[in-house]
């Protein structure tokens, strides 16, 4: 099929209006292909086959797209929360963060893991897709030692490595995106679809930002991130009980109805309950050197 016919078939797919309608109810493009098949011309079917053949890349976002989405989610968060650019404290957070990220199931992301302190008294932390992790000064003040800092960062790394942010995007947006990529990829030049892509981008990052700031992840996502955190802590040599002790502190400081962790996370007590069956090892010793550098880095936080 030449380029003109490819474009025609792409246009057919779009004009038929079936794509968007059908897409919204489908979990995967494989499902879409079988539902749409009777309605498609041979050319339309070829385009759909292209999309289906891309497999997993279209059931979620590939690392490059996740990277660009994550940057914009973070840019939006930074319009609500001012970054706190104390060099020593941010370097310390990045060292602890890199340690825990290296021990995660997904230590490499497209742009790598980066950690930033936010100038806010709220008890909060966010993981924008792709490894951009933000933590408030208020949350850091809750931590009594480096192991607890590692625990909260490992929890956020757990969200990133399991792609919870990206998975909070509505299915219909991912499949719309796949259709746009399929038709756009056929053109050697021009960007007629760019505005449609920007719309899907905007909607997708709204989905993620709403999840991070307002709605919170599902209870199962939170359990998965806590489990990931406890595994990471053990692997790196931090005390996994630090996650429980941090949650105990948070339980005393969180105010019901506040717009922070209290709003977006299950209660600390329920998370402690879940963790009790997971963390079976004894509490480990925190070295004096570790406590010294923690105290030094946190002095101005």
């Amino acid at each position, binding site marked *: *099929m030449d*380029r003109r016919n*490819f474009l025609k078939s792409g246009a057919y797919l779009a004009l038929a209006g079936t794509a968007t309608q059908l897409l919204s109810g489908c979990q995967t493009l494989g499902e879409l292909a079988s539902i749409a098949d009777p309605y498609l011309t041979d050319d339309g079917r*070829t385009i759909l086959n*292209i999309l289906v*053949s*891309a497999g997993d*890349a279209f059931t979620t*976002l*590939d*690392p*490059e*797209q996740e*990277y*660009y989405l994550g*940057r*914009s989610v*973070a*840019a*939006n968060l*930074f319009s609500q929360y001012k*970054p706190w*650019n104390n060099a020593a404290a*941010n*370097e310390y957070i*990045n*060292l602890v963060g*890199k*340690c825990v990220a*290296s*021990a995660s*199931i997904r*230590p*490499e992301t*497209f*742009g*790598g893991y*980066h*950690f*930033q302190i936010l100038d806010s008294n709220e008890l909060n932390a966010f993981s924008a897709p792709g490894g*951009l992790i933000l933590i408030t000064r208020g949350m850091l003040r809750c931590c009594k030692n480096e192991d607890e800092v590692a625990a909260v960062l490992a929890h956020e790394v757990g969200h990133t490595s399991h792609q919870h942010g990206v998975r909070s995007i509505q299915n219909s947006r991912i499949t719309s995106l796949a259709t746009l990529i*399929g038709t*756009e*990829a*056929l*053109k050697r030049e021009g960007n007629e679809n*760019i*505005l449609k*892509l*920007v719309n899907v*981008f*905007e909607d997708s990052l709204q989905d993620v930002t709403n999840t991070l700031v307002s709605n919170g992840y599902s209870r199962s996502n939170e359990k998965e991130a806590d489990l990931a955190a406890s595994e990471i802590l053990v*692997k*790196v*040599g*931090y005390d996994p009980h630090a996650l429980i002790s941090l949650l105990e502190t948070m339980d005393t400081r969180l105010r019901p109805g506040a717009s922070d962790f209290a709003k977006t996370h299950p209660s600390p007590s329920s998370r402690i309950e879940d963790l009790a069956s997971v963390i079976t090892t004894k509490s480990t010793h925190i*070295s004096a*050197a*570790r406590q010294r*550098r923690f105290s030094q880095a946190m002095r101005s936080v």
Partner: protein
Amino acid sequence: MKPVSISVKSTQLRREPSFLSPIIRHLEYANLCDLQETRGDWALIRFSNLEGWVHQSALTSGQIVLSAGASDVQRLASNKEIALAGKGFNAEVEKRYRRMHRGTNYAAVDLMQRRSISIQALSHFIQSGDLNRV
């Protein structure tokens, strides 16, 4: 030997399967490599006559095509081992979005992404903190 591609912006070919290992060379997005063997989460690969270790999370099976044209798209229809770079959410989409949303703070994102930790600093941090090498 199986073809695999680097799926992250940049990573390192390492002498040993560890993030603290000495680096043989830097690898970039879409570099096509040969997979020799795997050990746990690490893959022994060959690139440009050099052999070394890369974490599997930085790899994808098959080929990533940069600046894909229509012929690549047609190849994609019959070959699951091909992925197209730069399609969908990309720098151009971000640029357009930024123009429409002036209140967003990308300068802060750029600043946090510029902060990097060297292997030496990470290694020292792990050792002095009585932590495990990863």
